[in-house]
């Protein structure tokens, strides 16, 4: 007994210094302004993930520090600097907005820490500026609209008009749909982001262009505004609308409350859907609904994944947080249960994954949600991977 005790004591003494550390994760998202509705949903998912892992990774306590980017690149960069310099975090995760991520990139990567995007996927980070310590649990911006372009081809759409906001992600999204859509693009408008919410001039131009269909990208509250105005303009029959990231689980309850029935049946592409059939996703969606009373958004799903990706890194090195190379290798293998199902990482650390066509439907309780209508892409890799020097 005595020997056992002393052995245990010795073991604790030996392990304590190495294991005294906690895993510190800085999570940058938007908690103020109207865009906080997205940040709050992400926060819910991250809190749920923390609950599911019992607040521990490889036996280490996890300390999460949320930071608010204020919806502005320079504020995002400031809070990122603070996480690195003041909190000395091991991982910086989050980032809804491409421009915020681009502004913050250098601060994280220069310090040798891991940067994990749970949403934004700007093209430079997938191509020339890719980095061994950067990982994405979402997609490269071009991919989702590329899948939409492919779907438009399958539907036999001959011409489209494009309207999107004029910032990093907007430009990527437009490039994406242009990359795969084989028909004609009869016009394109880039609007001021994020202030412009009245699209009367653009809609009139789209209509005058005579295009067969309209494609837009408007995340967040601009999406709600655009959908309303599209409906008010009465274009539904003459010019069907196809969207990317414009309708989500955050806007659907709002549309339902406002009796905006045109949204039912809308289709858009994405890498995830609450109805995807895998154990991790079932648990995530069920517990999210039970805890918060609403469907999780894709933002939430990707943020939930980011915590599990980090967990796989910490477990891969058995809690030795100084083993950066080991953690990187662990993450690169994408060996964690993802809510989107199994995927692999490309050389630029963006997922190679499926893209699905989601359709807005009523669930058994009459609430609006989405289901998978079909698979558009299997194991799709982003088009910038070839420009990335990483192997």
């Amino acid at each position: 007994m005595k020997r056992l005790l002393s052995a245990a004591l010795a073991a604790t003494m030996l392990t304590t210094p190495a294991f005294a550390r906690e895993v510190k994760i800085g999570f940058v998202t938007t908690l103020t302004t109207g865009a906080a509705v997205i940040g709050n949903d992400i926060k819910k998912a991250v809190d749920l993930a923390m609950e599911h892992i019992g607040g521990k990774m490889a036996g280490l306590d996890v300390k999460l520090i949320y930071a608010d980017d204020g919806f502005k690149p320079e504020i995002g960069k400031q809070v990122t600097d603070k996480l690195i310099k003041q909190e000395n975090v091991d991982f910086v995760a989050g980032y809804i907005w491409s421009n915020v991520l681009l502004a913050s990139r250098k601060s994280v990567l220069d310090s040798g820490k891991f940067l994990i995007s749970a949403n934004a996927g700007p093209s430079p980070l997938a191509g020339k500026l890719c980095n061994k310590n950067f990982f994405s649990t979402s997609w490269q911006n071009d991919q989702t609209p590329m899948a939409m372009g492919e779907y438009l081809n399958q539907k036999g759409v001959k011409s489209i008009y494009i309207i999107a906001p004029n910032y990093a992600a907007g430009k990527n999204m437009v490039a994406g749909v242009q990359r795969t859509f084989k028909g004609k693009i009869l016009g394109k408008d880039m609007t001021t982001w994020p202030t412009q919410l009245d699209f009367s001039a653009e809609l009139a131009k789209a209509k005058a262009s005579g295009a067969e269909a309209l494609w837009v990208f408007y995340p967040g509250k601009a999406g709600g505004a655009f959908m309303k105005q599209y409906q008010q303009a009465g274009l539904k029959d003459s010019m069907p609308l196809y969207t990317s990231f414009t309708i989500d689980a955050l806007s659907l309850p709002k549309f339902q409350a406002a009796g905006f029935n045109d949204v039912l049946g809308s289709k858009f592409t994405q890498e995830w859907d609450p109805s995807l059939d895998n154990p991790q996703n079932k648990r995530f969606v069920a517990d999210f609904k039970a805890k918060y009373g609403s469907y999780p958004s894709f933002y939430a799903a990707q943020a939930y994944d980011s915590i599990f990706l980090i967990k796989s890194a910490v477990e891969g090195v058995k809690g030795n947080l100084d083993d950066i190379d080991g953690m990187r290798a662990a993450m690169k293998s994408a060996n964690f249960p993802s809510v989107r199902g199994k995927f692999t990482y490309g050389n630029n650390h963006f997922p190679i994954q499926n893209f699905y066509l989601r359709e807005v439907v009523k669930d058994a309780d009459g609430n609006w949600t989405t289901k998978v209508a079909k698979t558009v892409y299997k194991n799709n890799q982003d088009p910038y991977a070839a420009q990335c020097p990483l192997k």
Partner: protein
Amino acid sequence: MDYTLLFIQTLNGVQLGLLLFLVASGLTLVFGILDFVNLAHGSIYMLGAFISASLTFLTGNFVVAVLLALPITGAIGYLIERVLVRRLYARNHLDHVLATFGLILVIDTTVQILWGPAGISVPLPAWLNGQVELFPGVVMPTFRLAIIGAGLVVAAGLFWLVNHTRLGMLIRAGASNSTMVSALGVDIKTLFSLVFALGAMLAGLAGMLIAPITEASINMGGEVIITAFVVIIVGGIGSMKGAFVAAILIGLIDTLGRSFLDDLFALFMSQNAAETAAPAISAMLIYILMAVILALRPQGLFPPKVR
């Protein structure tokens, strides 16, 4: 040139201009008569949108909600005047700017706490939610036509109020000579409170009318207030006519710029560069207009005669 498109965009521009006029008219009343710079005018616009949105869901009818929300916004304006603004009349404009900037932060954050950050999508009754074919090929959303109608009615009402009523006379007199008005036995303080409340109602109405188009959302005030200031500066502070002309002018410039500038730019730069430059340059146009007008006429287009 596509004349149908030009005509539709002109209507869109007029609609935007009239909405701007609603915001700017309240601002120019307060600025011109009380000599008070109210940066928080945009926050009242936002309050109007949120209050009418909540009332729409409560009463089930957008029009009823607006009619109820108008006096509520007016009352809020009245309260703000009594509690804060009144103490600042004797101060200089810089103090006004600083205090009302503080007020913006207070109101915007309070709205976020009360209503959450999500914003509210406001449903319209069916008869307002459709489209009207004005001429063959010229189809406008009914609600945008309704905004044009409401804007014109309010504009006419304001001209009548300012130029042909006793209240209007007192308002005009109060601006130039408050002691004389007091000597007439009119309570100048109450008059000022009422003017401020009227200004708040006008801003609130604009917010209520835009909410079914863009949703009621926090920070929507910050986006409109600067444009409204440009309108009243271009028009001449305190001039209702000036505010009207400038608002329509700026609405047209903004809409037509957004419509046609990118095609124009594409003539001499790459399509992508043109798509980035055009929205920025068309947003810049109204500031260029303001600078040019102030450089030529430092008091705006229609400087009020009595000051």
